[in-house]
């Protein structure tokens, strides 16, 4: 039971940040959209500050709580990490969102489009892990 407490608390914080961003600035807290917007949109200022906050919030959380920093996957091939990154970037821009934009904000406003997107990326994520781990044997 105990192992569910931190994920739930973390989820509540993520939800609160998303809802407050919408209530104050009227923006969807979709991180893929914010990342691309920070590079390509005319109104970049708030996006960069949000992303800096994302990194700083993570650092502060580990410093203040003493929760161990997750270990790095040093045994994964560079090509795999690069391919994963390109696919995430490509997919989130083509599909207009990621886990936060579709999964939390989109579902929160009862968007059928986001429900479909979330179901699709959850499904292909599960299939990918199954194929990599159980068909080819673990590479990560």
């Amino acid at each position, binding site marked *: 039971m105990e*192992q*569910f407490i*931190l994920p739930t*608390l*973390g*989820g*509540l*914080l*993520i*939800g609160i*940040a998303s809802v407050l961003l919408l209530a*104050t600035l*009227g*923006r*969807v807290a979709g*991180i893929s959209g914010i*990342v*691309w*917007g920070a590079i390509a949109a005319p109104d970049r*200022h708030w996006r960069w*500050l*949000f992303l800096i*906050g*994302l990194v700083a*919030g*993570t*650092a*502060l959380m580990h410093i203040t709580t003493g929760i161990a920093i997750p270990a790095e*996957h040093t045994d994964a091939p*560079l090509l795999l*990490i*690069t391919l*994963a*990154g*390109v*696919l*995430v*970037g*490509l*997919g*989130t821009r*083509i599909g*207009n969102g*990621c886990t*936060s934009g579709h999964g939390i*904000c*989109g*579902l*929160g406003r*009862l968007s059928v*489009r986001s429900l479909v997107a*979330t179901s*699709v*990326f959850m*499904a*292909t994520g599960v299939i*990918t892990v*199954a194929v990599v*781990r159980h068909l080819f044997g673990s590479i*990560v």
Partner: protein
Amino acid sequence: MRAWLALLMGLVFGAGLSLSGMTSTVKVLGFLDVLGDWDPDLAFVMGGALLVSLSATPWIITWVRPLLADAFSLPATQSIDRRLITGGALFGVGWGLWGYCPGPAVASLAYGYQSTLIFCVAMVLGMWLAGKLHLITSRLND
């Protein structure tokens, strides 16, 4: 004021991600390993976030305008088309290969791992590539 609020929301979002376990690729891959040795913990992240989002968002979007901006910037697209499915599918494969979706990937830059930086650069490259290949319909309008 608007900018500082964005920083504050980023801080809370990042704190939530790292507290929840989403910044651990091991944890995420364990969560996605439904057909193997499934680690269900991260379902509670989605649960907690959706609890807040589902209770407040439908009400907030009925407001005439947000508290500190002229209008809501919500996605206008409603259609469920091939791009949505294709994009979602590609994103899921990338997520399952390494264990990072965009939020945790950016947040994890705090750990200073070279692999995270490579992932983030590749992710931006993928986003740029989507535009170059004319695979997108949405426009950044502001």
